[in-house]
């Protein structure tokens, strides 16, 4: 199965969309990692208040109303967004896969109860669940933000995984493993898990974009990443009063969100059609 996953990855990267998306994501990650060495401190406020300055050679993206460099804030926002995105998606996929595997393989009452709960949770938009959870903290710490976003993102994945497990349960190789006396743990971990990896990876890539948008939205409401840490949503919030006079302060973080989410979705779609050519 890992062989076919690697093949799907190769096919996905050969498609134009997949290649573009992967290249953009790699570029963003590179900028996020090495950018801070070359750029001014994102939170340094100059002694003489410069106000919002338009793009010039020293500040290619201009500065915000406190005179902070928008380029270095955008790059350090990339660090935050990608970190939150990757870890929150990892949490969500782990939870979703676990619940899906257990519900699908155990069946019966456990399955029924879990899926009823998932149905009900899916009926509440994720943003509302997040708002109720995030409000608990006055200034939410970053690790908690990641956990909370991850904990609200596994419902549809668990349904997806459960569906795959139900499909696989009657397959000869599972029946054979059962007949040979393999324990449920071994069947789940050794036989089912590798076979649901494909759809989960697609869901993870597509979920990355959603998480980045959600984090930006929460930060825009002042509930996500807390200042002075630079985040894209927080930068747009800060730039709101000066958007008419200094549009660059809002323009660049927004473009950064758009490019990142677009890149993640392009890769996700390329992977999806590589794994399941019917959807193309």
């Amino acid at each position, binding site marked *: 199965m890992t062989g076919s996953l690697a093949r799907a990855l190769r096919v996905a990267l050969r498609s134009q969309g997949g290649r573009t998306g992967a290249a953009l994501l790699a570029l963003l990650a590179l900028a996020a990692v090495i950018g801070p060495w070359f750029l001014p401190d994102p939170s340094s406020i100059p002694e003489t208040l410069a106000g919002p300055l338009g793009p010039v050679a020293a500040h290619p993206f201009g500065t915000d109303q406190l005179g902070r460099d928008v380029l270095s804030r955008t790059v350090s926002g990339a660090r935050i967004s990608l970190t939150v995105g990757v870890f929150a998606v990892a949490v969500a996929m782990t939870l979703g896969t676990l619940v899906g595997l257990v519900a699908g393989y155990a069946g019966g009452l456990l399955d029924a109860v879990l899926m*009823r709960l998932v149905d009900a949770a899916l009926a509440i938009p994720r943003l509302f*669940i997040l708002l109720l959870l995030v409000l608990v903290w006055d200034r939410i710490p970053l690790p908690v933000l990641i956990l909370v976003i991850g904990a609200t993102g596994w419902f549809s994945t668990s349904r997806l995984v459960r569906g795959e497990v139900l499909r696989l349960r009657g397959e000869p190789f599972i029946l054979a493993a059962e007949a040979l006396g393999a324990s449920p743990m071994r069947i789940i971990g050794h036989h089912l898990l590798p076979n649901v990896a494909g759809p989960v990876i697609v869901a993870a890539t597509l979920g990355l974009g959603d998480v980045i948008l959600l984090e930006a939205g929460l930060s825009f*409401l002042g509930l996500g990443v807390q200042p002075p840490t630079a985040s894209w949503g927080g930068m747009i919030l800060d730039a709101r009063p000066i*958007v008419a006079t200094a549009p660059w302060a809002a323009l660049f973080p927004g473009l950064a969100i758009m490019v990142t989410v677009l890149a993640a979705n392009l890769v996700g779609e390329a992977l999806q059609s590589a794994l399941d050519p019917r959807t193309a």
Partner: protein
Amino acid sequence: MRWLAGRTLQALLTFLVSVLLLFVLMRLTPGDPLARLEGDSQLSVEETAALRERFGLDQPLAAQLSAFLRGAARGDLGVSIGHYPEQVTSLVGARLPATLLLGGTVLLLNFTLGTWLGVLQARRRGSALDRWLSRLSLAGYAMPSFWLGMILISMVSVEWQLLPAAQMRDPLIAPDAPWATRWLDVARHLVLPAVTLAIVTIAGTMRYQRTAMLQALRQDYVRAARARGLTERRVIWGHAWRNALFPMLTLFGLWLPILVAGSVFVESIFNWPGLGALTAEAVATRDYPVLMGTAMLTSALVILGGLVTDVGYFLLDPRVREP
């Protein structure tokens, strides 16, 4: 009939469980919604205790839940903290029409423009037009709605002074002005928020319609219609599209949550007096009862959307009814 009753019961059960989940979520807060007031030097310990009793927060959790459910069944969701002493239900009711107007307009835009573009893409599958429409709609989907709204305001309202940037009505237009004036005024205010929401959501409709149409175009009856020498227009819209509309029903159910969640940001950027803006306000003032109210209404809408979709399939498509 049995099926219909079963499906409705299932929807009700789902709603009940989601209300339960919401209630538990609300009370996950360390302490309770009033815990914040405790550090407030303006209030004495006795006063917070009195408030707690007033809101029933001194009761055990199960008693609170049953009181809440009994109230909710009567249409009483409690009192707003931010807009004290207004009822949550009356607040939500007052804000609902604006959201329905905005959401309805966006749905209309999506289902006309989005479907048309999706059909266009399917007819020219693989062409440059198809590819570029996909890319553009994906780019729209990747934009944060609040950012797009801000950019549109700074361009269309501030720079070009074409359309109003906020609110739903011009306060300078008298309420007894001719209805055409008033309607035109609301319509002018509606353009920017509706366009913003449509841009960030239209990708879903286009994609769905494109896939459904591609499938329909492969069917035998389309080939038969072509063989009979019907005009391309008749073949596409009269034969293929009519069948490619069925899958769009599913989309209708998926729409509601996206629109409601999107309206939280778009309505607050444009000061549109709807449920989304109310939710954003409730977040700012930690108004838990109002948040609970909007979240409950939203999940009711989502479940209702799913139910309507399933019933629609059942009534319209005989294939679903066959065992």
